[in-house]
């Protein structure tokens, strides 16, 4: 637990319980996460309705016409816990404006001796048919239903029993078969090229100017005696761009450690922060200069987007780094960071997969690494065969996609020219339809 707490909080040897307790107190005030108590609550609600139905005064007026067209069917493509219930209105119900005010759906399961209410539906809804998804059922168990039509005075009538109907569990989303095939093809390509790379096959990667410029930037900082500012994006550790950025950070930190220079890494996400601290610390150790690692240089700022941007701008203006490396996921603060960096005369290398921020980086930075070039960084810098292989596999899959696009566009265009759209089925191949139908 000691290493976990130290690692989670600050990655340092000091343990301070007060901030953790304060955070825990804050957490306790947050709304609780919803838990799966639907069935219990449903049962309690059903009991309340049952009690109110039982307490209704004995019928003194003519009962309303019952519902006769109850339909129950299994919900397609699910885990076998849901039945779809639908029924038309009672003939005495003109859209909720008459005597009929509610419909109660009663269910009897395999272990039940009598029908019990599972849901009460108001008659004041639009449409001729009312529907409900009965959830929390057992796959394969038979359930029978009937609909009770109720008036405001408590007079009711029961419709005929429908069932038993058993919900069935499905084992494959048939509407996703196209996704499965493309996924399998993708995985096969990646793994095949990784295997080829491990066997010693030489794989070519084109030059990426932004990644080559990192060396130049770090060298410039060392000559000027200024630190390098590295911003690993503002997203969480689960973001692929952040993972790619951490790869580059390790390499950059090692280079900086070798040159005995300084690196500043302000973090926005509290989960990313201990990881970046570990990466930089290890890089310095690996370079042979563990004593040069400064804990205060890798720090957590705040998890508010613009407060983070303001703090980093302040760091840029005060510390005047020789190079700014903005690599990761960025949002609206990207231009603020890039322009401030430009105003202090730092060499700037930016890389992101956020398409909307690329124009700002291209305008304000010296080098921009666009989209997937960021993901290629780990393979490009390290030149490890496994990573190179996966990059090639990804590129060849892209080639397959390109060929499919060209064929598809040609077929669809010719379909338009032929006017009778004979190739419309082409556009349906890659569609993922909703599970309901």
């Amino acid at each position: 637990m000691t290493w976990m707490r130290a690692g989670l909080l600050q990655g340092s040897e000091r343990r301070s319980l007060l901030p953790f307790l304060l955070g825990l107190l804050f957490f306790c005030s947050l709304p609780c996460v919803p838990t799966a108590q639907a069935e219990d609550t449903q049962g309690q609600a059903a009991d309340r309705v049952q009690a109110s139905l039982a307490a209704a005064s004995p019928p003194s007026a003519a009962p309303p016409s019952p519902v006769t067209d109850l339909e129950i069917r299994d919900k397609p493509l699910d885990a076998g816990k849901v039945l779809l219930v639908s029924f038309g209105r009672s003939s005495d119900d003109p859209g909720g404006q008459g005597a009929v005010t509610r419909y109660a759906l009663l269910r009897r399961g395999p272990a039940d001796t009598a029908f019990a209410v599972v849901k009460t539906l108001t008659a004041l809804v639009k449409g001729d048919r009312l529907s409900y998804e009965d959830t929390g059922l057992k796959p394969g168990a038979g359930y029978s239903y009937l609909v009770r039509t109720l008036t405001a005075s408590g007079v009711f009538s029961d419709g005929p029993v429908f069932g038993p109907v058993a919900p069935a569990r499905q084992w494959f989303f048939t509407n996703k078969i196209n996704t499965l095939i493309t996924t399998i093809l993708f995985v096969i390509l990646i793994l095949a090229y990784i295997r080829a790379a491990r066997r010693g096959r030489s794989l070519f990667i084109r030059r990426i100017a932004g990644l080559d410029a990192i060396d130049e930037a770090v060298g410039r900082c060392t000559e000027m005696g200024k630190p390098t500012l590295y911003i690993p994006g503002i997203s969480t550790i689960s973001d692929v761009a952040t993972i790619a950025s951490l790869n580059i950070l390790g390499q950059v930190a090692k280079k900086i450690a070798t040159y005995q220079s300084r690196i500043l890494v302000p973090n926005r996400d509290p989960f990313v922060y201990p990881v970046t601290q570990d990466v930089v610390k290890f890089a310095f150790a690996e370079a042979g200069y563990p004593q040069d690692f400064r804990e205060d240089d890798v720090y957590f700022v705040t998890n508010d987007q613009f407060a983070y941007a303001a703090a980093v701008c302040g760091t840029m203006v005060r510390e005047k780094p020789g190079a700014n490396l903005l690599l990761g996921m960025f949002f609206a603060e990207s231009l603020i960071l890039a322009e401030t960096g430009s105003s202090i005369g730092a060499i700037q290398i930016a890389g992101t997969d956020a398409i909307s921020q690329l124009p700002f980086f291209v305008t304000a930075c010296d080098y921009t690494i666009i989209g997937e070039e960021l993901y290629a960084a780990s393979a490009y810098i390290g030149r490890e065969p496994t990573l190179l292989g996966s990059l090639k596999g990804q590129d060849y899959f892209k080639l397959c996609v390109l060929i499919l696009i060209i064929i598809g566009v040609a077929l669809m265009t010719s379909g338009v020219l032929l006017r009778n759209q004979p190739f419309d089925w082409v556009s349906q191949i890659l569609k993922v339809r909703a599970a309901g139908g």
Partner: protein
Amino acid sequence: MGFLEWIVRLQRLDRRIIFSFMFVAVTVPFYLNWPPVEIEVSREVEDAYQIIDRIPPHGDPLLLSFDYDPAAAAELTPMAEAVLHHCFSKGIRVLVISLQYTGQGAGIASEVVPRIAAQHGRKQDVDWAFLGFQPNALIAMLQMGEDFKRTFPTDYYGTPFDEIPLVESVQNYAQIPAVLTLAATAVGESWAIYPGSRYGLTVIAGVTAVYTADIQPFYQSGQIKGVLGGLKGAAEYEKRVNVLGKGMAGMRSQKTVHYMIILFIALGNIAYWLSRGSAK
């Protein structure tokens, strides 16, 4: 210093001068109600309007998701207000949530929705309800596809889900005619990618101007059925529902600023070419 030399020095114009001109360009139109702005309602906004307008009054609610933080409020709150005016004036019920992970979107929603509802005499929990926020947008979107109550067991004010009359007939997306997501990030397209394709939910997106271009592929493919893009989108919707507000007011400043930027770019390029000429 000659005129030519002065023009050439424009290339190195101090950014503070540019900032000063920008300040004037943004603020003066608010006080002068100038320049005049005439905008046309675009196809994307008209599609969004039609989808919302077709929702029957006093029936299934429009799901309105405040997925933005205060930084984007200047662009997206006018959209929210225009849509709320539209809904409340026609009796269309509104179910409000927020998937902005720090809860600031919920803070905005809790201020905007009651204010607009009060102007139309609409009652909480009957004509509108605010279920609160969930920090993880993706999980909340997928959970609501199965069960709203599981995702929001109480509303923002602590009322149990079962005790809110508006959601009596609402179980999951099957009872939601459409969702309008107001977002400044990829949450907007996540609605189309996940609930849109998995549950067939109709998605309308209100996004910041910089994000409008990112959303366009989804609109063109039909995954998103309507788009309100930036302050212009808000102004178009205000025009469509005939309730002019901050969207239209902001367009005046936007016009002045656009032309000012074009002027500065032109000056910079003139200076550049003159400096090249004088260097030769």
